């Protein structure tokens, strides 16, 4: 990985970057992150000025538009000490692309480099940032899981072990292998609607692998991948689901500490 080293986030206040999709569609994922961090006694805040990392525009070739949205991110997080986000692809956008996006403006470039150096994807924050390997969780009922390795997280951020490490010690969780777990689900952001036939063909392979997997639930670090895969599973009547790992981990917390999660989403 050519990404620069980051200072340790231990002991620092966390500013949560929920991401546009979590904010709009999957708030329970954001709440799960909040629950876990509060359980660990970490001070967490949510800068209300945040919107989106700008990746959709960047992905589609619209650099000016992406920059416009990314500039709002810089404004929202200008006072952040550590930024944690439940999305490998958004973290990769910030860490990998922000400096290039603002290369022409020294002041914004400095801000971009600053946020790039303090941004952590959720699982790597816990495992690599804080050194936590066992959250001492216990799921209410036995459940089976396998991992889908989201591409940006795996290849751009070097994630992969963190999610597995966190699930390793969870009581009542059985972990299975997913065939072709590191092959792209076909979402690719704007790719999913710019090249829908290609995206769907890749999705067909992925859901065939999920259907044959022994686990009932597939875990991912990205709700974008999750949306693609669940969309395909539902359409094809495959009775399995993909969930963000934060929600499953939060389900293992002592229930009287949970806030903001609808009861039925904790199973």
């Amino acid at each position, binding site marked *: 990985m050519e990404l620069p080293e980051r200072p340790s986030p231990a002991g620092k206040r966390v500013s949560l970057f929920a991401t546009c999709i979590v904010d*709009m569609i999957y708030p329970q994922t954001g709440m799960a992150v909040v629950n876990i961090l509060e359980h660990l006694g970490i001070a967490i805040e949510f800068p*209300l000025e945040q919107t*989106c990392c700008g990746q959709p525009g960047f992905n*589609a070739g619209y650099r000016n538009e992406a920059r416009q949205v990314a500039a709002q991110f810089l404004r929202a997080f200008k006072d952040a000490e550590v930024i944690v986000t439940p999305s490998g692809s958004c973290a990769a956008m910030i860490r990998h692309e922000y400096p290039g996006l603002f290369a022409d403006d020294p002041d914004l470039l400095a801000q971009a480099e600053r946020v790039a150096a303090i941004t952590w994807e959720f699982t790597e924050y816990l495992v690599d940032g804080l050194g936590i390997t066992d959250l001492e969780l216990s799921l209410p009922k036995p459940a089976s899981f396998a991992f889908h390795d989201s591409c940006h997280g795996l290849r751009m951020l070097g994630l992969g072990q963190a999610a597995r490490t966190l699930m390793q010690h969870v009581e009542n969780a059985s972990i299975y292998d997913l065939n072709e777990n590191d092959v792209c689900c076909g979402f*690719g952001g704007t790719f999913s609607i710019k090249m*829908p036939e290609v995206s769907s063909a890749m999705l067909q392979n992925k859901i065939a692998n999920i259907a044959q997997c022994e686990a009932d639930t597939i875990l991912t670090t990205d709700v974008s991948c999750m949306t693609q895969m669940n969309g395909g599973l539902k359409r094809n009547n495959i009775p399995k689901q993909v969930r963000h790992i934060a929600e499953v981990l939060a389900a293992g917390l002592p229930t009287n500490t949970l806030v903001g999660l609808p009861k039925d989403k904790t199973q």
Partner: protein
Amino acid sequence: MKVNANNFVPMFKVNLQKQDVQEAVHYATTLAYHKRLDAMFAYGQEHGEALRQQAAEAKRRALRNLPDLLEKAEANMQANGIEVLWAADADEANRMVVDIARQSEAELIVKSKSMATEEIGLNAYLEQNDITVVETDLGELIVQLDGDTPGHLVTPAVHKTKAAIRDLFVRELGMEPTDDAQEMTMAARQHLRRIFLSADLGISGGNFIIAETGTVCLVTNEGNARLTTVLPKVHIAIVGIEKIVETVDDYATLTQVLPRSAIGQTMPVYTHMLNGPRRADETSGPEKVYVILLDNGRSRIYDSTYTEALACIRCGACLNACPVYRIASGHAYGWVYPGPIGSILTPLFTGLENAKPLPHASSLCGSCKQVCPVEIDIPGMLLDLRRDLVAEGLSPQVWDWGMKGWALAFSKPGLFSAGGTAARLGTNLLGQNIPFTGAWTNSRDMPEFADKSFRQLWQERSQEAYQKGASDE
């Protein structure tokens, strides 16, 4: 070769329906992908990554010094008795080959595999000039006999099943029907042996040219490059100018990563280092050797921001790793070079307007970059080409407007929240029947939107905590 890359999506859909192509390509690419992992990392992860870095450095240095190295290569090849010609474009290269063929009175030419010659359409040009040319790489032979074009950089017949090849050999070579791969290969061998022994001229490409020694380097598994370049009286090598490497040591590095990255071999069956025509005391070898150094757009790419694309050693690892290529297979990409590297080379060589879908024919999963033996940042260049499409006005206008609207709404928290509320209400009311979302809903269900956004939940929570705190006092 004519470019048809703007038809990527329709051709993708055609290939998607061909069950035998799907099975053949999936099998071959995933096999090669896993064999590469075993071969590249036989001595551990660190060792394999260090080897990649070493190979990347060798190619980057060669590119940095390319102008000097080309002159050095020419001088050293000439000292070896090789005649060096410079072809600015495809036409010039083709004419040079025909001129040499005429001078040598060559009627039958044998060819070992060369993607550069596919690029310039050499075979068609030779046929037009009544010169017979026979492909001797087994995959290329299959493709030539079938009136087809290669579907992969390294394994040209990847899209053909054994059954299809069997039928082809029965029809074209008079082979006795058999499903045994060895017997089928023997049939091809016998067919080609007669041709090799009567060929007047041999044409090859070049995997590398070592500037330090003026050596043309080739690799094959069938041994066809040996028979192509040694048996006939004349040998012509057509080599892109980006294939020059500086030293024998650099070649040693690259010749380790090439076969491992391509199909997981530690060495190909045959490795050739050609240092010119037959010497006075040698009993075999051609009497005359020509190297045609081909530009055909390479120096233009060299001067652009996409120089790195010229580091490619044509191993095909990116094709094997690519989830899109595994389904699309080569012909969907519409030109000589398919897969991830092809999605960059085709617009760079033939013009972005002739290959508009290709920079978008990728989910940017990054597998290609992960396997590239010379660490080409393919996803980065695809993103740059997408930027170029927009900058050159080649992006659909509905996207221009849509993105401007998106940028406005997503850079203002108030608008963003309002938009989110509207989206939630809309999906809850309309379910799966939302207008303009056909691209998604044709094959996938829409997600369930939650009733409240995260920021709403957060603000409510903060309110509760504040009120609780106030009432505790």
